[in-house]
């Protein structure tokens, strides 16, 4: 089955002001084009109709990775996942994001797909979402009334739905990552080119002197209508020494928080079980209690 695109009008604004005018003018008839690896597939395969396609790539300044002096990071919405993957700064200082971006699709897809597009499509399985939520990232939105920031945790409202009005996502801001240890694990039928059955991002601030966990972040992908922060699981760990039992309790709490559906990639029951497995595995590795450590035996 070969799928062809149906006719549409292609517009290429040169500024954000111009882009906003087009979005106001055409409303829901307009689809925003970033990398195209989701939009064009949905238009070809799933009959998504677009009368007008607004390509943002001629607007200057929407792509790029900026390391700020205070240790925070700003990423333009049109930055490709490939550019994130090739960024030695992100790999060294925000490995969670590096891991998420690097496991999307193929080389060819990552060379086109953008971080903004991955978020705006609002798939519960988007691979950059759990890492960015766990890192405390904010969306930088530009609308009629200027720019506003929205915690990514509040950005997603349902499958394919976001809290954006007639706005454009222009970038992501991530606070300094400090010395926290983190891990993103993705479980999918194929290692490459596949969508997560379940994914989990964990980030732990463990005091190396006392072994007590400060802030903990546990974010689940593909098991709820939105990328899901497992707060009860985080609270199980915060202010505590991370014993094997604690990690186990947190993994169980994450499992309880999950509200998965069943689909062709896995049943709801399988997904729920895998949330426990993956969360436990990620916590064990991120807390340094993995292989080679006597800690986990206790």
């Amino acid at each position: 089955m070969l799928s062809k695109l149906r006719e549409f009008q292609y517009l290429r604004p040169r500024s954000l002001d111009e882009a906003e005018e087009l979005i106001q003018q055409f409303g829901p008839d307009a689809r925003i084009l970033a990398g195209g690896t989701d939009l064009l597939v949905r238009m070809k395969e799933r009959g998504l109709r677009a009368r007008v396609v607004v390509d943002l790539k001629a607007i200057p300044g929407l792509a790029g990775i900026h390391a700020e002096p205070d240790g925070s990071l700003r990423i333009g919405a049109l930055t490709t996942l490939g550019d994130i993957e090739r960024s030695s700064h992100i790999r060294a200082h925000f490995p969670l994001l590096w891991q998420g971006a690097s496991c999307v699709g193929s080389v060819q897809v990552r060379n086109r797909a953008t971080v903004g597009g991955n978020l705006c499509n609002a798939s519960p399985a988007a691979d950059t979402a759990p890492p960015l939520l766990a890192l405390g990232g904010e969306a930088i939105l530009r609308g009629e009334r200027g720019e506003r920031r929205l915690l990514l945790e509040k950005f997603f409202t349902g499958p394919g739905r976001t809290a954006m009005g007639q706005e454009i996502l222009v970038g992501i801001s991530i606070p300094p990552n400090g010395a926290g240890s983190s891990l993103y694990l993705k479980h999918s039928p194929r290692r490459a080119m596949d969508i997560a059955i379940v994914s989990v991002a964990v980030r732990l601030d463990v005091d190396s002197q006392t072994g007590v966990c400060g802030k903990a972040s546990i974010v689940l992908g593909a098991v709820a209508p939105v990328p899901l922060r497992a707060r009860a699981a985080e609270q199980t760990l915060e202010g505590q020494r991370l014993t094997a039992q604690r990690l186990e309790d947190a993994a169980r709490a994450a499992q309880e928080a999950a509200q998965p559906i069943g689909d062709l990639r896995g049943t709801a029951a399988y997904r729920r079980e895998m949330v426990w497995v993956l969360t436990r595995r990620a916590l064990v590795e991120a807390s340094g209690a993995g292989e080679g450590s006597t800690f986990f035996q206790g």
Partner: protein
Amino acid sequence: MSISLCVIVNGNEHHLDVAPHHTLLDALREELGLTGTKRGCEVGDCGACTVLLNGKAVNSCLVLAAETEGAEVVTIEGVAGREGLHPLQEAFIREGAVQCGFCTPGMILSALALLRENPRPSDAEVRQALSGNLCRCTGYAKIVQAVLDASDASLVPGFGRPEGLRPSR
């Protein structure tokens, strides 16, 4: 309504009038007659339509022709030099990495993009780089071997030059 654009394909400048809903793949095959780039799944899963766009491997089925204004595109037709095949192509033939041949152009371009960034990849890195290119004939072993073979050839001067991609003359 068509869109006029100027795009450099295999080193030659082309002025094209394209329909807004036509992809780069459509333009290459139907406007320029470059049918070496294959039309496979049309949704970015199979990699048969892989070309280099400004030096990066992309699925040409998921790029609108209109998005390529001013861009440089390399297709399989631009890989061989005047004096013969590219070392990567030679390696594919030598290793028996071509069976039906449908995936081969995309494989070659993905491999070329890899060897330019990483001239001495490991087996795992080759497999990773080719994970977006499906082959239903070979079982991949000979393709991976061909790319590893060519990675030694890639050390020769002139290999993977951004403008020409041709072996040294």
